[in-house]
């Protein structure tokens, strides 16, 4: 019998009841499995092995994904899963940045696991509703909405009817639908994507939460790697969760007092020092646009250059005037860092929602740099409009921006022309063309359909259809492992080339951001120094993703006496804070070394997972040359003095009378060999073979010598 949900009028496809359970020391000790193809719903126990070796968050995601797929599974096979998990520390309200959800799936861009994190309330609500993680598997034959009522202990799969998929509308509609009344809306969190995710490989997941002050939904994104594309391929329209009764002690930590004390200490630091340091409360991550420009690091014109004369037009102060002031916003309770900015009452000038006044979350640095300077666009309103449409269409702004910059360079080089783009004049700086491309992507029409494939597939298409030079495309197409680069210019920092290239999921800077340490401070001059940094920081930062934590409160604020410590770059006091809050929640007794080992276990697991899927070896860690040095004469000439000097000083190469092409070649040989040497040093430090495979000894040392891992490793030695 088909029942109907009284509240929403939606037909139920499946109903399920569960006992609410107990949350103890950060874990519910149970996860939720839903197959949207067969409507099977079940609860699974969290095993001691999962807690010991995978901790939570993306650790749980990778663990479940490994069980779900085989080496031949593709992203759009029903076996692929989307796993969302917070982590044992996630959901506390005392320490800033504790509400992240980690999402893992097989990516349509990279064909291997991708992980991405999002703020908002979903992850904590899921835990309070009784589950440490949710696995979504299968493929529905019609659009479905999953609804979890975390107070009643019910789960339903319902048929979706008629709703648009664009998030700024759908998220609001579902929040209203599933809330009992206005007051109840704050208790609803929605995961959804948008029409763009249905037609591109770069779909993201939006995590909405209700903003009581604005009386509307806000969005945070799990942006990278096409997770939204997988979500829509499964015909999931939304996952909605409801939980009323958030309190500071729901994790049942063993030591509430330490949590309180540690939190208060950081709140005070943020209160006293943020204005003089990074102004996160005032402008959020967009604070660094002009700084990046001044240090020649702001990606401009598809990463050709690092600065532009018009950057002042999109500087942070310009955005300050556009975002609503005097309301520092957090994306989870208790985040006094409050970087979640929004521009209100923004009137859209293009697209299907033209004329509507909307709230735009952001801009983040990545949006301003990617949608802006990297595409030669220096119009703040255009950046906000692009930002809005990317979000509501469910399109990853970073991939969109980087691939559009690539398309623009192809256009300026004659690889593309108006005929090939269906009339779009995709020169750098053409705002209208960029917006039109985005609208096309949302419908899967015109050149937008091609661009939405992502850079890797586009390169193959351009070479095949138009005879473009594959080597040139490889050099300027800023993707690696299939994922588009995030928005920093790594050309002059070898360590950052490693920070992008020697990563598990592809060139996203969330493993390591070492540009200042390396290029400006010159603190890691040798290969071994760089390798040490490329060991420590990726491991340290992986840990946030195991615990449902946000990275920003770690180093976007520093204690006043941080400079007196022996390793200021690590912010030692904050590292100790993390050790303290982890122990306070879980009752374990880790120290800062065990923290790194916890990450190393999962990091190596992910590497081996990549290898199991046919990737993740040295050959996959190569970078496009644009990331390492000047590809074109124009680029070389823009920094001629610097490059000539380097050739003379580092290589004893006499530049007199040499053509720019000759100098480019010598520079390229040198820089590529440096990257190879760096790769050797990093693999050695990480305990991997020179082909990038974790060794059996390393796995034993980490107590990660699980039979399924040894099997993959031994096969690939």
């Amino acid at each position: 019998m088909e029942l109907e949900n009284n509240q929403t009028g939606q037909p139920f496809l499946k109903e399920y009841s569960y006992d609410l359970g107990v949350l103890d020391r950060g874990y519910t000790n149970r996860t939720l499995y839903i197959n949207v193809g067969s409507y099977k719903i079940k609860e699974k126990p969290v095993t001691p092995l999962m807690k010991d070796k995978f901790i939570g968050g993306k650790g749980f995601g990778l663990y479940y994904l490994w069980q779900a797929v085989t080496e031949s599974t593709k992203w759009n096979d029903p076996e692929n899963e989307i796993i969302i998990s917070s982590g044992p520390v996630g959901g506390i309200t005392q320490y800033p940045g504790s509400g992240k959800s980690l999402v893992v799936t097989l990516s349509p861009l990279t064909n291997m696991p991708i992980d991405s994190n999002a703020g908002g309330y979903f992850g904590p609500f899921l835990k309070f509703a009784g589950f440490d993680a949710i696995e979504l598997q299968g493929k529905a034959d019609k659009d479905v909405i999953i609804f979890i009522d975390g107070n009643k202990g019910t789960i339903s799969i319902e048929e979706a009817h008629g709703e648009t998929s664009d998030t700024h509308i759908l998220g609001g509609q579902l929040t209203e639908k599933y809330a009992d009344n206005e007051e109840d809306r704050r208790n609803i969190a929605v995961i959804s994507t948008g029409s763009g995710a249905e037609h591109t490989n770069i779909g993201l997941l939006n995590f909405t939460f209700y903003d009581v002050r604005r009386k509307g939904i806000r969005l945070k994104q799990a942006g990278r790697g096409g997770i939204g594309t997988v979500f829509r391929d499964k015909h999931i329209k939304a996952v909605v969760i409801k939980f009323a009764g958030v309190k500071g002690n729901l994790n049942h930590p063993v030591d509430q007092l330490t949590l309180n004390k540690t939190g208060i200490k950081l709140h005070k630091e943020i209160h006293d020092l943020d204005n003089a340091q990074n102004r996160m409360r005032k402008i959020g991550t967009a604070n660094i646009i002009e700084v990046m420009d001044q240090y020649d690091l702001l990606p401009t014109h598809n990463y050709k250059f690092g600065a532009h004369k018009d950057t002042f037009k999109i500087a942070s102060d310009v955005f300050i005037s556009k975002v609503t002031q005097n309301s520092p916003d957090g994306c989870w309770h208790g985040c006094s860092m409050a970087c979640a900015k929004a521009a209100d009452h923004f009137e859209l000038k293009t697209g299907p929602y033209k004329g509507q006044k909307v709230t735009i979350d952001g801009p983040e640095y990545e949006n301003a740099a990617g949608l802006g300077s990297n595409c030669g666009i220096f119009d703040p309103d255009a950046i906000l409009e692009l930002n809005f449409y990317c979000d509501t269409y469910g399109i990853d702004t970073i991939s969109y921006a980087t691939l559009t910059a690539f398309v623009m360079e192809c256009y300026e080089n004659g690889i593309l022309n108006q005929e090939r783009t269906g009339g779009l004049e995709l020169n750098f700086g053409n705002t209208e063309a960029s917006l039109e491309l985005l609208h096309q992507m949302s419908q899967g029409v015109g050149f937008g359909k091609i661009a939405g494939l992502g850079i890797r597939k586009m390169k193959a298409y351009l070479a095949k259809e138009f005879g473009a030079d594959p080597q040139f495309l490889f050099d300027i197409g800023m993707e690696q492992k299939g994922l588009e680069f995030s928005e920093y210019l790594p050309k002059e920092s070898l360590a950052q080339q490693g920070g992008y290239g020697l990563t598990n999921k592809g060139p996203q800077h969330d493993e390591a951001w070492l540009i200042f340490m390396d290029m400006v401070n010159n603190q890691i001059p040798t290969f071994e120094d760089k390798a040490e940094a490329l060991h420590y920081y990726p491991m340290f930062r992986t840990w946030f993703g195991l615990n449902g934590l946000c990275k920003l409160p770690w180093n976007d604020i520093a204690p006043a006496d941080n400079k007196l410590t022996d390793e200021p770059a690590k912010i030692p006091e904050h590292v100790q804070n993390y050790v303290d809050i982890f122990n306070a929640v879980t009752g374990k007794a880790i120290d800062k070394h065990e923290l790194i080992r916890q990450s190393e276990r999962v990091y190596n697991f992910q590497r081996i997972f990549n290898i199991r899927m046919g990737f993740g070896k040295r050959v996959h860690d190569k970078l496009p040359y644009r990331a390492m040095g000047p590809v074109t004469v124009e680029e070389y000439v823009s920094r001629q003095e610097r490059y000539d000097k380097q050739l003379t000083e580092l290589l004893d190469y006499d530049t007199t009378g040499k053509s720019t092409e000759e100098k480019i070649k010598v520079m390229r040989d040198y820089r590529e060999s440096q990257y190879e040497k760096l790769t050797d040093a990093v693999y050695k430090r990480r305990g991997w073979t020179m082909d990038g495979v974790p060794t059996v000894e390393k796995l034993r040392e980490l107590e990660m010598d699980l039979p399924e891992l040894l099997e993959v490793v031994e096969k690939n030695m």
Partner: protein
Amino acid sequence: MIKLNNRECEWQEGLTVQELLKLKTFTYPRIIVYVNDKIISPEDYASTIIEDGDKVKAIHLMAGG
């Protein structure tokens, strides 16, 4: 000549920390300056004279990302 972050750097008589930061366009808000291993507070940047041969460090603390 002085050393700035362990690299050779031009020097002139009377150069202050403030002028050096300006010359290098070191505009980042979170820099720790050391002259010969002694930390210089921001309020002393204008009055601290750098001598020929000094070892200066201007350490930019990571953020972003």
